């Protein structure tokens, strides 16, 4: 057998083994999360090594308890509210801002474009104490709206940067046609830029949604009232209050994971493009 053949065969075997390894380590935690959420407390305590879920013993009790006894129905709507408002504001402001940075001439244009990326690097932990202090001082800390503003500040620079990269590749001639026909700049954005940028806008929206939906640190530090908890904050609260009832924590984890994973798998291509173009171009 030639070296070419030998190595090709080795690679083929390594590839199959490698894929099996990755599939197991990636999928197992998600599998375990779902399976455990349908088990009863007895099952969790008495048969911790049971990898399978007995179809006849599927138990929805954990979901019921988490939703209605631990307040997760409320947490879900809070998370949805915070994430959707963040996405709406972030996409709107990033579209307008990204357009200004790409197409309009003004002093400090280069500065604006580059400072965006520097902000990307700022550690959240450096921001959390000063913001905690300021909002505690003003008595505004325990609020979903303050949380939205914080998320907006975290996502806007990246969103603007992603859209800027996209707008730069759009032909400017179409806009001239619009401007000559009497469109204002806002009209150009609304009638020309937005329709042409639908895929980029979808990427930005998904990216922002992911950040806002998954965020833990600020939600944990800022929110005190259970009625205002987002899902992430609620899961931590729940995990701290039930020690052995892992099925409850797993059911809560499924609730916070499923929406983002479904959304993501549905729009996978957009998000992949968003994640890569956001950090790589320029």
């Amino acid at each position, binding site marked *: 057998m030639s070296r070419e053949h030998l190595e090709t065969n080795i690679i083929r075997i390594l590839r199959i083994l490698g894929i099996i390894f990755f599939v197991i380590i990636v999928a197992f935690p998600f599998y*375990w999360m779902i399976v455990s959420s349908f088990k009863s407390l007895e099952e969790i*305590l008495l048969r*911790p090594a049971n990898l399978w879920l007995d179809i006849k013993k599927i138990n929805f009790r954990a979901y019921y308890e988490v939703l209605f006894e631990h307040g997760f129905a409320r947490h879900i709507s809070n998370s949805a509210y915070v994430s959707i408002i963040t996405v709406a504001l972030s996409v709107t402001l990033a579209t307008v801002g990204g357009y200004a940075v790409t197409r309009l001439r003004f002093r400090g244009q280069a500065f604006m474009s580059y400072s965006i990326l520097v902000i990307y690097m700022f550690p*959240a932990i450096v921001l959390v104490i000063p913001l905690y202090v300021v909002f505690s001082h003003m008595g505004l800390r325990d609020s979903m709206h303050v949380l939205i503003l914080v998320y907006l*500040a975290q996502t806007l620079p990246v969103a603007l940067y992603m859209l800027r990269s996209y707008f730069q590749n759009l032909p400017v001639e179409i806009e001239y046609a619009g401007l000559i026909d009497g469109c204002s700049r806002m009209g150009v954005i609304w009638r020309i830029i937005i329709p042409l940028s639908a895929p980029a806008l979808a990427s930005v929206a998904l990216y922002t949604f992911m950040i806002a939906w998954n965020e833990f640190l600020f939600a944990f530090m800022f929110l005190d009232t259970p009625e205002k908890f987002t899902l992430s904050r609620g899961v931590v609260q729940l995990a701290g209050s039930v020690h052995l009832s892992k099925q409850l924590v797993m059911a809560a984890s499924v609730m916070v994971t499923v929406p983002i994973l479904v959304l993501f798998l549905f729009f*996978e291509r957009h998000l992949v493009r968003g994640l890569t173009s956001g950090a790589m171009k320029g």
Partner: protein
Amino acid sequence: MINRQSLLDQEARLAFWMLAPTFIVVMAFVVFPVIWNLWLSLKPVSLGDLRGTSLFEFNLSLVNFQKVFGDPDFVPVLLTTLVYTVGGSFLSIILGLTAALLVHGEFPGRGLLRGLFISPYVAPVVAVTFTWSFILDPQLGVLNWMAVNTGLLTQPIPFLSQRWVELDIMGVSVRLPLALTSVILFEGWRYFPFAFLFILARLQSIPDELYQAASVDGASPFQRFYNITLPQLATVLSTLFLFRFIWTINKFDDIFLLTRGHAGTKVMTIKVYDYAFGEFNIGAGSAVAMVLFAILLLFLFIYFRWIVKET
């Protein structure tokens, strides 16, 4: 008739209004806090001072930094931070590279695998940390139970709550920081998709002609990988290391949720939290945050000096 200058003025004014909201939000929630953090780090502030006016008093001192640098924990925390950051960054990039090489090429189910491989990165941090804690739990965790039942282990291992483990590798006894290793492995698991995406995109843009030419010249698959693929990936790998280093050193959530910084996993971000909200010493917390920020800037400086020299 509108002249050119007034058109430019008009354009600049419009740009100002279009960027003003973004500018204000970022100033208020990113730039201002960093400055305010510096201010707090130079003052003796406790959690009790938040309501009064003492926050604005001009009583600056270095007392917080003295406390931070004089803490016997300082050096161990710094070391843990570096091990965690470098280890986590490398591991996530190596796993990402492996996964990208596995998925690269045309075969059925490729899109599905790609989607699956990205899910650890997309899933909420609270969900995946609690799931892994459950899997690794010494009392109820499936991994320990399976290992004990099959005779692989004689007793369960507390992966996330034990500082050291003695390993016997062919007669040589090695002491391994157990919880820190577990946390680094988690880091690799959760963030490899990020490296995976970038490396996969780069792999797809390597021109086929390079490989064909090498094949004609008699290069074997491993030689082609070593002489073509790796050099082509050099830039993306070093950029990934920069990004991963910055994000890992800034990471708080993962360790906090997995171990709360116990069992030898206390990194600087956890120390910030411990000072500020464990000891109610806001000033000392801010001071650690400033030290962290300084280390980050130093790293960026060295990195860019080095990269600029290299290219």
